């Protein structure tokens, strides 16, 4: 039964081996260790997945021991394996394994890959810990840990100028969110007196909605702030595009498929709690749709292939939060699942293009690569179709389910969502056309291009199969399917409590109509993009000339980064300087530290000087001490 502990522990072992002895191991050996640890975790995850399927209430709770017991705070060292966590485990270890294999090919020319693989293994350790943990503080350990690994991996190319900066930025934005999670956790402890997820949700199910309404709303809001940090939502999304400074497989694994979805995971995990707070849910829905639309427009005119995908990720995460906000928890989570496949696929495809072009990431210098990179093209095409929501693909199933639920909730929200979907189709088509279609724009780069090695193409093929097949698990009921995954997730999302979820009415005609509208509009916009860009860059250059202001705003991402710099960062630098000069140097160092330090030193010298080493002095002092005690007593009496 306890083999479940091995799922995180084996990657940890891989981290220890590669981290401590990596420089002594041969390149091949360290790669074999890294891949095989993830492979064994994947096998174990599969075994546990089947076990959960077989278990009667689809949940296995394991308490291995006690982690901390202070007063009335009991934190068990426990795991919970249910539909949510086992699906996440499969995604983390399965896609993680493919990305590890891909990395062998991608990092072929790099030095010191042991460090890279060690961090990657460590990431899998923390991420599995995050999803398996049965208590919030323990989950928080994983939460912080993946943040750390993300920081380390973004800054992997530490010789460059922007990578360490980007790592730092990611870390700081995440810290802001983490404070929210901590406050949320403490508030929950205040209300319920426990931080074990099972106990917490059991109390929640017995709660009358109006009790503690304010406190619970506050707690969920704080938790959501944490989620906006980790899952790159407004206002804390700025770090994710910069995080593309890391190696591309890292972007695929951490910044598309797994870590950034942990915010959604957290909310699904605590769904019965969030259901109690309509205010927070509204906020989540609006933030989600705003992020989806906002980020999609920012992706429209990016020139860096990875930046397009990064903004696309932010936007898709927005869709997931939109789903959660309209209480479509399983729909939102299903989008996590499908998105993990096709976005990882797109990132890895982009990586393959980048490798083929010898680390050229500018879309404007690509073009016509279809013949040169056939495998990359066809696999990426599958990913692109999924992202656009082409009928029948997994992206269609999950995204249009979210949009349908949104419409039931509020048609306005739905309208914004469709707008975001239209933008999505546009930039996806633009990306595909600029890379693969048309004539090569830079012949020197084009001539040296070559299809990537098998290490890279095989994971691509497997991922595209996954992206295609993912749809089988969750064809929505509103489109006449069974939606096996949603039914199954339901048990995990309610956490076995009887609390009734908000029932969603099934109106197949409405669902089909809505899907038809959004799909037709999306395909239309994709077609327009294809038409405009298949002739080269002339249209975009023309647009830049004619509407230079709009273009500039979109290219520069609404100047948010510059605004943050001017309004928040620079004033803080200034304030910091003032405090440093006035507070630190004069008050703290001078009066606070050096003065007591000097005083203590003088006293210490005094103490040492009393230590003459002569017995007669010691005896004298003792007698004086006895007399002193008597004197004290007399003084006290009077």
């Amino acid at each position, binding site marked *: 039964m306890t083999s479940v502990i091995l799922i995180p522990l084996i990657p940890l072992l891989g981290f220890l081996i590669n981290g401590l002895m990596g420089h002594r191991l041969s390149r091949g050996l360290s790669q074999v260790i890294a891949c095989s640890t993830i492979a064994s975790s994947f096998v174990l995850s599969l075994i546990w997945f089947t076990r959960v399927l077989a278990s009667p209430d689809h949940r296995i709770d394991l308490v291995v021991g*006690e*982690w*901390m*017991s*202070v007063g009335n705070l009991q934190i068990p060292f426990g795991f919970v394996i249910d539909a949510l966590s086992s699906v996440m485990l499969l995604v983390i270890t399965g896609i993680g394994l493919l990305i590890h294999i891909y990395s062998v090919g991608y990092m072929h020319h790099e030095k010191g890959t042991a460090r890279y693989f060690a961090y990657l293994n460590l990431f899998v350790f923390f991420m599995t810990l995050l999803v398996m943990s049965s208590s919030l503080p323990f989950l928080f350990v994983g939460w912080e840990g993946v943040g750390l690994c993300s920081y380390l991996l973004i800054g992997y190319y530490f010789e460059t100028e922007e990578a360490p900066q980007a790592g730092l930025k990611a870390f700081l934005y995440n810290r802001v969110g983490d404070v929210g999670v901590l406050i949320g956790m403490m508030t929950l402890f205040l209300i319920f007196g426990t931080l074990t997820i099972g106990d917490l949700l059991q109390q929640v199910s017995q709660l009358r909605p109006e009790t503690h309404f304010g406190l619970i709303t506050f707690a969920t809001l704080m938790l959501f702030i944490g989620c906006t940090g980790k899952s790159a939502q407004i206002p804390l999304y700025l770090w994710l595009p910069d995080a593309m400074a890391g190696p591309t497989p890292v972007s695929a694994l951490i910044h598309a498929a797994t870590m950034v979805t942990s915010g959604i995971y957290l909310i699904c995990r605590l769904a019965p709690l969030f259901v109690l707070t309509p205010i927070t849910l509204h906020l989540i829905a609006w933030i989600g749709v705003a992020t989806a639309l906002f980020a999609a427009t920012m992706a429209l005119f990016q020139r860096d292939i990875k930046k397009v995908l990064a903004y696309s990720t932010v936007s898709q995460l927005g869709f997931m939060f939109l789903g959660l906000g309209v209480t479509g928890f399983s729909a939102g989570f299903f989008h996590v699942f499908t998105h993990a496949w096709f976005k990882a696929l797109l990132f890895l495809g982009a990586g393959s293009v980048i490798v083929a072009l010898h680390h050229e990431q500018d879309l404007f210098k690509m073009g016509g690569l279809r013949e040169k990179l056939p495998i990359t093209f066809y696999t990426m095409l599958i990913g692109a179709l999924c992202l656009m929501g082409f009928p029948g693909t997994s992206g269609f199933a999950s995204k249009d389910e979210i949009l349908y639920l949104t419409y039931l909730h509020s048609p306005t929200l739905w309208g914004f969502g469709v707008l975001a979907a239209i933008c999505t189709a546009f930039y996806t088509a633009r990306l595909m056309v600029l890379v693969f279609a048309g004539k090569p724009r830079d012949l020197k780069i084009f001539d040296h291009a070559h299809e990537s090695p098998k290490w890279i193409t095989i994971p691509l093929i497997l991922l595209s199969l996954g992206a295609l097949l993912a749809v089988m698990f969750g064809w929505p009921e509103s489109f006449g399917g069974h939606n096996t995954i949603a039914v199954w997730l339901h048990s995990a999302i309610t956490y076995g409590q009887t609390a009734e979820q908000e029932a969603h009415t099934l109106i197949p005609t409405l669902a089909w109509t809505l899907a038809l509208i959004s799909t037709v509009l999306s395909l239309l916009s994709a077609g327009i993009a294809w038409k405009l860009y298949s002739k080269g860059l002339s249209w975009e250059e023309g647009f830049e000339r004619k509407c230079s202001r709009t273009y500039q705003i979109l290219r520069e991402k609404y100047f948010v980064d510059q605004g943050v710099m001017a309004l928040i960062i620079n004033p803080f630098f200034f304030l910091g300087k003032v405090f440093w000069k006035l507070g630190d140097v004069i008050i703290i160092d001078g009066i606070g530290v050096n003065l007591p330090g000097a005083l*203590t*030193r003088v*006293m*210490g*010298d005094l*103490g*040492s000087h*009393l*230590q003459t*080493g002569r*017995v007669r*002095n*010691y*005896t004298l*002092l*003792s007698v*004086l*001490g*006895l007399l*002193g*005690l*008597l004197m*004290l*007593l007399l003084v*006290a009496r009077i």
Partner: protein
Amino acid sequence: MMPSFVQSLWTALWQDAPLVQAPFFLIGIASLMLWPGDLLIPRDQKRRWSLFTQIILGITLYLVVVTPHRSGFSNMFRIDTMTQAFQLICTVATLATVVLSKKLLDLMNEHTVEFYTLLLFTLSGMLLLCGATDLVTLYFSIELMALPIYVLVGYFRDQERGIEAGVKYFLLGAFSSGIMIYGISLLYGATGGTTTNFEGLSTALVAAMDARGTMVTLGVLMVLVGMAFKVAVVPFHMWTPDVYDGAPTPITAFMASAPKAAAIFAFAKVFGVAFHNIPNVWTFGMEYMAAASMILGNVAALRQQSMKRMLAYSSIAHVGYMMLAILSNDPNLSIRSFSGVQSLWLYIFAYLFMNFGAFAIITFLQGKGEGERIDDFRGLSQRNPWLAFAMMLFLLSLAGIPPLIGFFSKFILFKMALERGFVVLTVIAVLTSAVSAYYYLGVINQMYFRSSTGKDSLKMDRMTGVLVSVCALMVLLGVSASGWLIDIVDKIKL
């Protein structure tokens, strides 16, 4: 007439004999080791006594555990769970000392049976001291405990510093014993020559306070001074730095743990039971002594160059913290509301591991011809990362940094003192422990941020490795077991 008296005396002694089975077993075995045991071991095989002593101490551990719980010898001696808990600490500390000494004695070629028998004799004194419930048994157990240590301090006869330390310790110890026995006789007189029993005194002294107040006051203060000498509280601490510095390092580790545990437990019993009803006489002075110990111990440690001297001063400070426990002792409360003696035990229990871990590393480095000066720790992290890491754990734990066990014990102690209303003292305690972080971190600074100049990497021997690892694990993981530890401590009742 006469035979029946002898007979009843004999019966009574025989009945009470199981209470003292562990100390008497030790005395008997140690005597036999001296003669004829030593004759049987050839001169170049004396090191075998080490293993033998370890086995004896193992048996002693068992005997301590199985001792029945009751009073005996006309209420002069009592065994209860609390007593046993302190006896176990003393025995384990002695065992660790034997393990620690082996390497050093090998190196100096100084294995003799006397070293081990002296340790066993002093341990028997401690075991008796833990169980003493009468001023007379208290006094003679203290002497039995102290006399072998005077010799052990000067054990290396060719080292002048050790001899000097031994003589100094003996002179001051004798002086303090004189003061204490004088105090005891005054108290005995003040009660009208009726009792020296703790329980008896607690009521008798209240009555005597009215009639012969000065006599009682003087007596109590003299006992206080005598006990303060034994546990090294300011201003009766003067012997500590010199003796700790001069003694062989394993003996220093021993003195900082086992006799201290026994003596401070006796201290707590005398003042928590016998003088419990006349707190006005002693609490005031003790508060000042505790504060002075914390301040002087920590501040003087700042300027030390020698590791052993630094730890000596730090032990003075730690005793200052332990005084908080004695001051706020209330035998009727359980640890859930933080009673004094229980948190005292927890504190000493934690201190035992940090102390022995640190001293084991110093002994090991000394065995390599270095290690006594703080400078010698320079760059230890490069020479043996594990050793440096363990040393860092011990030092951080001594400084009371979470989540190590030292933090946990300190936290409970301070919390209890606060609940008893010793606000000023607790504030001083917290501030001085912040000061203490400075010198502990100084050593860590040397180990990690200074590079060693041209010294090779160090290889640990097995004994040191095991001892250091066990201590490090306890220090590191002790807090995870905190719930369990508190449950155990809660069962320990005075």
